[in-house]
């Protein structure tokens, strides 16, 4: 009897192991493609603008325009990792870091749309919807508040760009001017870049660089989406263990847990969206959910850092600088806002109030989503251009 069950269980276990190995190989391949595609965007952008990238992005030199571009782009594709990786590629292609910083901040706001939409699914049960919507929008309030505090300071004194530049200087160097210890990446990714460059030239010689950028953006989007899907399956067990261990502990553990889970699944939207049903059920309170979402903000910066390792040459330092700005900004925002009791309470107060209003009057939630993520940025673009 025992023999039969053993004989029956082993092939299944071997099959599962094989599937897991294949899934990890797929993740590794996708990460390789992701890194290669960032290099593609950099090369394409550099070629298309002939070194005059700052002229092309002249319209975004207004920081508010950069911020709005970041919000809209991220809200539309629902992935801050994709947008920040593209920004890293653009900086590698010559986009000035000062122009890119507000875009990174905008990506932070834009990404919060995903968990807000997830919370809308709880609409049929009033109390549950109130709690879920508050849990989702606490992330929005926090990220908007971070921009309100940090963007004016950055415009006036550039502390984030300066700190990012200083740290990038420590990490970038060597003969190839690449991230130290990652000098092998350029030769490793060059074959993929060459294949797509040739393909672009075959399609249209005059628009080859533009096509290379389009290929790069498409591959980044697809790679990050598929990595996210695979890692969700592969890491759900680990995420459970982390969350079980975080229960009953303080907010610092919550922040670290949120950060680690986001690094594991490579998506802040996944982490923050997971919190919505947990809060909706009433089992977790908003106060407990809040630190997890802040950890997600920090954890998501790993993707841009990974993307920056793809860049070598003169612009490698700027690519790493913007990726580090993303990290420093999110860490600084958590330290300042969550570290200051008065500021810490504001996103929770705003989210609770909005949750109550939206539960009483459901269309408010719809106007909120359309307004914050599309209408207000659209109107601001219109105003800025006149």
């Amino acid at each position: 009897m025992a023999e039969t069950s053993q004989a029956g269980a082993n092939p299944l276990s071997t099959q599962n192991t094989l599937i897991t190995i294949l899934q990890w190989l797929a993740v590794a391949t996708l990460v390789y493609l992701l890194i290669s595609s960032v290099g593609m965007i950099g090369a394409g952008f550099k070629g298309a603008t002939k070194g005059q990238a700052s002229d092309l992005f002249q319209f975004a030199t207004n920081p508010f325009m950069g911020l709005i571009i970041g919000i809209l782009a991220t809200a539309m594709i629902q992935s801050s990792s994709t947008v920040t990786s593209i920004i890293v590629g653009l900086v590698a292609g010559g986009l000035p870091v000062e122009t890119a910083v507000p875009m990174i901040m905008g990506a932070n706001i834009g990404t919060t749309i995903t968990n807000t939409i997830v919370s809308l699914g709880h609409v049929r049960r009033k109390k549950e919807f109130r709690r879920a919507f508050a849990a989702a929008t606490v992330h929005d309030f926090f990220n908007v508040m971070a921009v309100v505090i940090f963007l004016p300071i950055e415009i006036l004194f550039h502390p984030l760009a300066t700190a990012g530049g200083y740290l990038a200087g420590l990490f970038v160097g060597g003969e190839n001017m690449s991230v130290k210890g990652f000098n092998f990446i350029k030769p490793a990714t060059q074959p993929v870049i060459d294949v797509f460059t040739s393909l672009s030239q075959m399609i249209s010689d005059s628009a080859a660089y533009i096509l290379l950028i389009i290929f790069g953006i498409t591959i980044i989007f697809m790679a990050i989406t598929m990595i996210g899907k695979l890692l969700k399956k592969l890491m759900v067990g680990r995420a459970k263990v982390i969350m079980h261990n975080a229960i009953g502990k303080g907010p610092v553990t919550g922040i670290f847990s949120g950060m680690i889970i986001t690094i594991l699944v490579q998506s802040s939207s996944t982490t923050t969206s997971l919190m919505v049903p947990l809060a909706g059920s009433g089992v977790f309170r908003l106060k407990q959910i809040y630190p997890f979402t802040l950890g997600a903000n920090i954890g998501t910066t790993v993707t841009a850092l990974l993307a920056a390792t793809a860049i070598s040459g003169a612009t490698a330092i700027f690519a790493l600088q913007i990726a580090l700005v993303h990290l420093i900004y999110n860490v600084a925002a958590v330290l300042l806002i969550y570290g200051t009791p008065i500021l810490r309470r504001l996103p929770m107060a705003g989210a609770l109030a909005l949750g109550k209003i939206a539960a009483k009057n459901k269309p408010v939630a719809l106007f909120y989503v359309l307004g914050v993520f599309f209408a207000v940025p659209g109107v601001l673009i219109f105003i800025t251009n006149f």
Partner: protein
Amino acid sequence: MAQNEYEDISTKKLKKLISRTEKTLAKLQEELEKRNLDDQHSEIDHLEEHIDEAEHSLANFVTFLKEILADKR
């Protein structure tokens, strides 16, 4: 009027009663906290379902629109 309920009880007995009540309250709070933590652990055990739910953001949006339209009718 409720305060008269304890008028005939000696101070010693009253102190004893307070102490016993405090102990019971602490035990009740402990039990409540334990139940809350158990509920949280049990919710985490359903993480796969929550991940699935998070993946269907478009479906959530459609559900929401349907609900708003239903309310309007």
